[in-house]
């Protein structure tokens, strides 16, 4: 099939990855990157907002052709849909209230690299000691949820939220002690929580989060996947991704390997 046009979906409420402006247009890192990618792939793209919950089934049902919503490339998802090469790879980290006793837990400011299923990481074991009996909030059905269950499920209470934003509110309310999520997402969230929240413990990076964030496409559309992968490759090569990343995240999220 010859792709000259495609529909890309994103949530439109996951700042700064993607968000909605007051005039109804979509803005943020991903919409701007999408524009670049589509130009390079010579595809006329339409962006539509849709709900996170139903995105993958809706993609397979044919409602749109591409998902671009900070979607981590994971083995489970690969069973259902196809991914382009990643356009971002972000670290993840814990957040807590600034005045919490859990602030500045062991390893704060450090970077730990992990692979899937890896155990016996000393920094993580230290955190397990510190977080014993606490409540950790995560967004349901994310790679981060799996990580928390695997490593902290036995020592801490875990509470699942439908959205990260809900979790952040409860972190401020004090219903939960810790949150765990994408670090660049948190960076933005801290600002709007009037800087009452802060990172604690090390940033966790590496293949444990899969290959990074990629565009999701149907398995039946390899031509589309390849066209978009080419475009991502070129945008990474000439620094466009880095430029947009610095603009929106203040750090470079381009995948390093």
């Amino acid at each position, binding site marked *: 099939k010859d792709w000259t046009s495609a529909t890309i979906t994103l949530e439109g409420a996951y700042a700064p990855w993607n968000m909605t402006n007051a005039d109804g247009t979509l803005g943020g890192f991903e919409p701007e990157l999408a524009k670049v990618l589509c130009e390079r792939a010579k595809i006329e793209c339409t962006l539509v907002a849709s709900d996170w919950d139903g995105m993958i089934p809706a993609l397979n049902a044919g409602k749109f052709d591409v998902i671009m919503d900070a979607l981590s490339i994971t083995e489970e998802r690969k069973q259902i849909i196809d991914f382009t090469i990643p356009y971002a790879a972000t670290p993840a980290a814990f957040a807590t209230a600034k005045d919490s006793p859990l602030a500045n837990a062991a390893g704060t400011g450090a970077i730990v690299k992990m692979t899937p299923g890896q155990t016996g990481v000393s920094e993580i074991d230290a955190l397990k000691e510190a977080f014993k009996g606490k409540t950790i909030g995560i967004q349901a059905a994310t790679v981060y949820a799996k990580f928390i269950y695997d490593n902290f499920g036995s020592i801490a209470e875990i509470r699942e939220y439908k*959205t990260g934003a809900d979790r952040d509110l409860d972190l401020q309310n004090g219903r939960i002690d810790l949150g765990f999520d994408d670090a660049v997402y948190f960076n933005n969230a801290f600002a709007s929580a009037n800087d009452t929240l802060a990172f604690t413990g090390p940033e966790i990076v590496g293949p444990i989060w899969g290959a990074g964030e990629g565009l999701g496409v149907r398995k039946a559309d390899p031509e589309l996947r390849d066209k978009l992968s080419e475009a991502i490759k070129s945008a990474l090569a000439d620094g466009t991704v880095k430029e947009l990343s610095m603009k929106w995240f203040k750090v470079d999220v381009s995948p390093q390997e």
Partner: protein
Amino acid sequence: MATLELLGFGSTGWGALLLVATLMTLAVTATALAIGAVFGAIVASAKLSGNLILVTLGNIYTTVFRGVPELLIIYLIYFGGSSAITSIGNWMGYEGFLGLPSFASGALAVGIISGAYQAEVYRGAYLAIAKGELEAASAIGMSRAMRVRRIIMPQVLRFAIPGLGNVWQLSLKDSALISVTGLAELMRTSQVAAGSTRQYFLFFIVGGLLYLILTSLSDRIFNRAERRANRSMPASAMGQA
């Protein structure tokens, strides 16, 4: 950012979007009510037909669509509807995917649910018609079709208005659940505005107020319709609306 500015109509205000979303909620609810009227009328006639199979089918319809959470039904229709249409399309030789647009699938889902409630309303209204009036129509030689058109329909509509008012309110609130399809109606727009500005409470309260306005406006319209339809009722019944 000042609250007023956030809710205003300027380039940084969400006023225009919220207004459009409110109208979208109205439009999708009205469409759903119309779809539900068709389903409701069919199901009510089935339940009144006296035919065992039709009655059972009608009962299954009303039981299932009133007994399963709206959210589940919306999901099932949003996804199931698209796959069904796609496979029909493929079968007819169309290559690729066919999707039901969010508006259509949302309105269809809420309409099907609304149809289950409307069926009960219409059935009750039909049973409220005095049997003697139907006999009187037969006695002057009206055919079956004419009886339906001239005597039954007007009276069913008249008796159904209060019940339809309730169904409308139910559907109005069910339409908030269509937000899971991404349709930019009032609930979804409130959520998006909240997520994008991180002013959660502001936008949820404003969203709630807009629903309250819709509710009270439509209440008023239904009350007026009821008064109009009740012109022919005894004076004593009018007070009790």
